[in-house]
């Protein structure tokens, strides 16, 4: 089988403004490309066939990681391998750091970008879900300027986000974790590097062993990353003991409604989500 992309023209802008102008000039039949680790296979399989590829990988404004006023700003072009290795991310946005080893394989991580992953919003991907778990704000730029969208309002539907055609995701803003925060990440996949059957990230504010606030996000269970709102509510204000964990596992059925697919019936996916939830809450409670 030969997999070749349909012909397209290629442009490499040096600035965000130039990229936005190029997209405007081409119309909606253009596509931005950064790392291309999801887009290039889609082009090879001809699932997509844009007229023009606008290569944003050389735009310096989209790079850099800075911490200021309790927020970490991660440039959209930060590669997965950088997300894994960067000390600021490990310290302030630890769920990205913890999830990074599970994202595809080393060679993909050398090229794929955090912004690309979150802009694509594959519902089985780790980083979009962890952005939601950490309460990220997404900095989106268009010809009318920049805006910040809360992750809770950003994921709309399957591969559909608040990014409008022609707009670019410029940066991911994460509220830096505080000393009272605990977090845990894990996923269940058939083979290392495969998309997870189900995965989960939890960020909890725990004071005197009582949960003040908790965000629980699952991926691989629906059209978008899913916040387990009922489960969160069920745990808030509770001591994280065995009773609370079991109640949370029971509440999860009200949060997740996965569909059957060829390998995994919905009931199995919910069961695995419960297993994962129990493990992660156990880690947060300090058990091993």
């Amino acid at each position, binding site marked *: 089988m030969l997999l070749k992309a349909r012909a397209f023209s290629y442009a490499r802008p040096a600035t965000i403004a130039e990229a936005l102008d190029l997209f405007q000039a081409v119309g909606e039949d253009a596509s931005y490309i950064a790392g291309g*680790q999801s887009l290039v296979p889609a082009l*090879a399989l001809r699932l997509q066939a844009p007229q023009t590829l606008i290569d944003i990988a050389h735009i310096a404004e989209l790079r850099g990681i800075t911490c200021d006023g309790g927020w970490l700003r991660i440039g959209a072009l930060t590669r997965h391998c950088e997300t894994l290795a960067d000390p600021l991310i490990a310290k302030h946005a630890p769920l990205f750091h913890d999830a990074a080893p599970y994202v595809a394989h080393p060679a993909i991580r*050398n090229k794929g970008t955090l912004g690309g992953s979150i802009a694509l919003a594959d519902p089985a991907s780790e980083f979009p879900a962890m952005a939601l778990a950490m309460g990220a704000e997404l900095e989106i730029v268009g010809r009318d300027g920049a805006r910040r969208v809360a992750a809770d309002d950003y994921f709309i539907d399957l591969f559909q986000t608040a990014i409008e055609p022609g707009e670019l995701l410029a940066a991911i803003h994460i509220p830096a974790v505080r000393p009272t925060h605990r977090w845990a990440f894990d996923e269940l996949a058939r083979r*290392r590097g495969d998309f997870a059957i189900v995965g989960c990230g939890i960020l909890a504010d725990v004071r005197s062993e009582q949960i003040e606030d908790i965000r629980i996000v699952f991926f691989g269970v629906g059209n978008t990353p899913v916040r387990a709102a009922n489960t969160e509510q069920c745990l808030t204000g509770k001591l994280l003991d065995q009773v609370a964990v079991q109640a949370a596992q029971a509440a999860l059925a009200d949060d997740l409604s996965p569909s059957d697919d060829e390998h995994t019936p919905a009931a199995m996916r919910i069961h695995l989500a419960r297993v994962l939830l129990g493990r992660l809450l156990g880690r947060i409670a300090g058990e091993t």
Partner: protein
Amino acid sequence: MTINLTVNGEDVSESAPARETLADFLRMRLQLTGTHMGCEMGVCGACLVLVDGKVVHSCLMFAAQASGSVVETIEGLSERAAIADIQEAFHQRNALQCGFCTPGMLMTAQALLSQPGVPSRDEIRDALSGNYCRCTGYEAIVDAIASVARARTAATNGCQVGEVAE
């Protein structure tokens, strides 16, 4: 469009359509056929090359994106003897049969062994998770990489290099 890049130390300037992958560019225009193409969708790892020092899939990148970059293929690594010890270990351990996946395996091995420390077998397996071999079953490949990891560490620690005990 014109694509300018450095491949295995030589400046290259070639015209190619924008839709041509770096893998096709290397194989068809530069006759560097050591870069293999198995799946053309970033799954099998046979097409791995170094771009600006990082191992990437040459099937998941258009040559146009690599313009201005420094590329090294399996031919480059082999000819400057950077992986002679890994090649020898693969030979010694029978870590290949048909050899189709081997260029990608060697690329991954070199990237892993260029990092500090001696990788555990689990770390070697994790690094190889994006490289498919349909012949050997990986065990001998992990053995070969593990033996080079020990030998290289012994060499940098000033020990006698030779047969490394299991």
